């Protein structure tokens, strides 16, 4: 390929980059339609201009490695900027985004695409380059190259005008929510907001730690609710069967007199005395959807169980004595012929989105399943989520309040139910009974009025991770394998 043709291609690429995204943005979208870039969009636009300018460097001085290297660097940085910006809006409801949408994509997503095209173009041009093309040194400019330079400067001049009006001279900087562009100075906003003192973080509100019960305070008298009546532990025993992992939740089915117990990846059906394993399996957590560690367990019917991970991923298993062990190799790590996996998916939430859960409860009366959030360092809110058992889709979420006629009071002005750490839940008598490993507190939540109608302290619990109801008793399992039996009030 002749050198002139290759460098003509480069000049045309610079022209296209200058005119299409940058020129259109300033002259058409900016001056005509009044669109002002936010601070991130400004930097994305500047990055494209830098890549175009590096193309001009190559046209002028030849393809020196430092020009190509800086182009690749800025291209990659631009892809990161586009990803970072798109990430703020990508997971919202369909059609949502920030500022204007062009041909079904918002400008920040176009930036991501354009930077990617720039890197691809660099790769193609480099592949087409011959050794003789690599000669460096001052090159006389041909007409198309002069045109590229002049057009670039005109586009940059337009950006100088728009940037002066929209963001101002230093030290003013671009804004997060810029107002519509105007040539009238009375509509110019010059802001120093971007320089305000804020904490620096890599993941911000997404740096959320996984749940843990070991360090939680267990003394109910230090809890957020004052003067709670205590429930005594009437019997304490240990789960004597071998388990792979430690207990993470418990459920009971009265029809078959069996308990369901989960460990981090295990699903166990035990007899009514918790002394014999009737069937079990260890779910392969590495297959398909990430289930995290199991934290919730519930019977959906007498032969179907659901295990919920703390990230709200779930698996539904049905008992089957004739299960195909070969077919089930992908789903399980042990005991391949006792269950079939019916589905593996995730529960989606809104209020609970940035919190993990450590409980699962089934309510056959309303064909619903429930989960309760645990607080973390970023988000502290006790949210109850209800899902339709049929399609496993969110039906409602609520933040329970203290029922006015419950007699319950907070222990101090700044105390709240949000301090509780619900690690087990069960539905009985139209109420949810939720056990908090933090402060060993048992809540009774009315599922119609969304209020806490009663609460009790249970001194002596050790790291409770699950609760079930059998007859007139609560069975609360601890992470260490203990089972605490308490009479229902």
């Amino acid at each position, binding site marked *: 390929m002749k050198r002139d043709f290759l460098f003509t291609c480069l000049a045309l690429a610079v022209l296209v980059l200058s005119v299409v995204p940058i020129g259109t943005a300033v002259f058409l979208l900016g001056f005509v339609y009044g669109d002002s870039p936010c601070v991130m969009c400004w930097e994305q636009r500047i990055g494209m201009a830098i890549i175009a300018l590096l193309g001009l460097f190559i046209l002028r001085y030849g393809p020196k490695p430092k*020009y190509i290297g800086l182009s690749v660097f800025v291209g990659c940085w631009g892809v990161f900027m586009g990803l970072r910006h798109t990430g703020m809006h990508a997971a919202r409801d369909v059609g949502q985004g920030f500022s204007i949408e062009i041909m079904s994509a918002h400008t920040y997503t176009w930036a991501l695409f354009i930077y990617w095209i720039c890197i691809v173009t660099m790769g193609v041009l480099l592949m087409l380059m011959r050794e003789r093309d690599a000669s460096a040194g001052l090159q006389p400019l041909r007409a198309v190259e002069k045109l590229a330079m002049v057009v670039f400067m005109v586009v940059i001049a337009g950006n100088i005008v728009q*940037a002066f009006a929209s963001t101002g001279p230093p*030290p003013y900087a*671009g804004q997060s929510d810029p107002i519509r562009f105007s040539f009238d100075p009375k509509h110019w906003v010059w802001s120093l907001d971007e320089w305000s003192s804020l904490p620096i973080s*890599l993941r911000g509100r997404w740096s959320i730690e996984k749940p843990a019960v070991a360090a939680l305070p267990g003394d109910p008298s230090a809890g957020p609710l004052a003067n709670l009546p205590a429930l005594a532990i009437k019997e304490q025993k240990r789960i004597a069967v071998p388990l792979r992992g430690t207990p993470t939740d418990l459920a009971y089915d009265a029809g078959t007199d069996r308990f369901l117990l989960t460990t981090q990846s295990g699903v166990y059906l035990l007899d009514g005395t918790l002394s014999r394993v009737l069937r079990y399996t260890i779910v392969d957590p590495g297959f398909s959807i990430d289930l995290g560690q199991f934290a919730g367990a519930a019977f959906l019917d007498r032969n179907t169980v659901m295990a919920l991970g703390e990230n709200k991923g779930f698996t539904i298993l049905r008992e089957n004595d004739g299960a195909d062990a070969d077919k089930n190799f992908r789903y399980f790590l042990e005991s391949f012929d006792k269950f079939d996996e019916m589905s593996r998916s995730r529960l989606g939430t809104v209020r609970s989105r940035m919190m993990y859960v450590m409980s699962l409860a089934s309510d056959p009366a309303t064909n619903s399943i429930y989960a309760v959030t645990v607080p973390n360092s970023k988000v502290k809110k006790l949210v109850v989520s209800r899902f339709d058992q049929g399609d496993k889709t969110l039906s409602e979420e609520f933040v329970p309040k203290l029922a006015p006629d419950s007699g319950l009071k907070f222990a101090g002005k700044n105390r709240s139910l949000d301090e509780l750490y619900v690690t087990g839940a069960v539905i009985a008598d139209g109420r949810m009974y939720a056990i908090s490993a933090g402060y060993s507190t048992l809540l009774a939540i009315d599922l119609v009025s969304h209020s806490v109608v009663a609460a009790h302290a249970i001194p002596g619990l050790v790291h409770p991770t699950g609760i079930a109801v059998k007859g007139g008793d609560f069975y609360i399992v601890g992470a260490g394998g203990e089972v605490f039996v308490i009479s229902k009030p």
Partner: protein
Amino acid sequence: MEFLNFVLLFIIAYLLLRKPQKERLAFRLLVVSVLLMVAMFLVATRTAILPGVNY
């Protein structure tokens, strides 16, 4: 700061067009422009530098 960066880019392009012998100055100014662009993006995103999604 964006205004400053565009002025810088204009000056660099002018050097390439009219004073090409000042290649070293032009490239150094371009590096300054890149650093300013990177710095301003990090200032704007400092409370959550990485994309806010699941990894």
